[in-house]
């Protein structure tokens, strides 16, 4: 199953590259730089999914006390941090040529940076826990509280004045985007979600074996 996910993800990434560079036109205003969107947007959407799974895993663990839930939260948290970092880096690279700055403390960028730090803290907390069960309990609390930030990140551009533009695809009223770009974006979203699932299933196996060894 994991192997199939891996191949599917690789296929998805190839299709995503071809769509992003070959099929989608360049943007009328921004030119080719806009193609960074095909990495930037899928990355943060994947991170949202990952942190939602951290929330689900944390709640599941606190209610059932079964370690499988905790492993889900932990693995999803690790991968979510990677995708948040990818979002921050790609966004920074996109920001320099378009906005004229690598970074600015507007609400969207700040809340995304906080999202990153919170889940790095979550992983740090986990790595310091020496008792498996208690560590999982503490982590679950952080995993639940951290999720509060997800809607803040997403809606920051609507709630406050920002440099970052409002959302295009997950927006209350649909902003215009060329259909070819939208299709390329959706393919890349699916591709990165497949990469996420592949990494998740790999990581879950390793974590299960670790728990079995410890038991």
């Amino acid at each position, binding site marked *: 199953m994991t192997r199939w996910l891996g191949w599917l993800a690789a296929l998805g990434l190839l299709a995503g590259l071809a769509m992003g*560079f*070959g*099929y*989608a*036109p*360049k*943007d*009328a*205003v*921004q*030119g*080719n730089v*806009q193609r960074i*969107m095909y990495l930037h947007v899928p990355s943060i959407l994947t991170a949202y999914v990952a942190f939602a799974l951290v929330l689900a895993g944390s709640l599941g663990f606190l209610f059932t006390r079964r370690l499988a839930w905790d492993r889900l939260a932990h693995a999803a948290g690790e991968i979510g941090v990677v995708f948040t970092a990818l979002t921050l880096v790609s966004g920074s690279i996109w920001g320099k*040529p*378009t*906005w*004229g*700055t690598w970074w*600015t*403390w*507007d*609400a969207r960028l*700040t*809340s995304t*940076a*906080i999202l990153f*730090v*919170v889940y790095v*803290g979550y992983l*740090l*907390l986990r790595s*310091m*826990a*020496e*008792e498996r069960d208690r560590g999982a309990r*503490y982590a679950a609390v*952080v995993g639940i509280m951290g999720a509060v930030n997800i809607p803040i990140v997403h809606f920051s551009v609507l709630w*406050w*004045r*920002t*440099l970052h*533009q*409002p*959302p*295009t695809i997950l*927006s209350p009223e649909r*902003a*215009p*985007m*060329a*259909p*070819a*770009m939208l299709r390329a974006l959706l393919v890349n979203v699916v591709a990165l979600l497949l990469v996420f699932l592949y990494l998740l299933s790999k990581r879950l196996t390793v974590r299960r074996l670790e728990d079995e060894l410890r038991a």
Partner: protein
Amino acid sequence: MSHRGKFLLGGAVILGALGYLVYAGVSQSVVYFVTPSELQAQPVPGKAYRLGGLVAPGSLKWEARSLDLSFVLSDGKTSVPVRHKGTPPDLFAEGRGAVVEGTWSGEGYFKASLIMAKHSEEYKAPHGNEAQAGYKELLNTLKGPGTR
């Protein structure tokens, strides 16, 4: 150090970092920029501001030799003249949004030290003709400005 001590230390570090980020973030980010109307209501000379608005059509002047840039930022009601020395970002243009960092000079203009261009959430193809876009266009761009 005991487990408990480590946990408390780790927790304190996380909470401290969070607290700082939230404090620094919220105090700065929530009013990320002021509008020309807000600035003109009570401008304080020498105070650092971020000013955001639309670059008024017909107001943009750029001296390529001396890098003197001047334009007017407007929110539809009030407008503020802005001066800057340097090269603006590519997307900076008349009729588009911009956010500038700097200070109110006290002499009737805003002295900007950083110019940032806002871009919209709209994405569309250059010619409205998507069929021939993609690869061909990308390759053409890579060949340099002459062949575009």
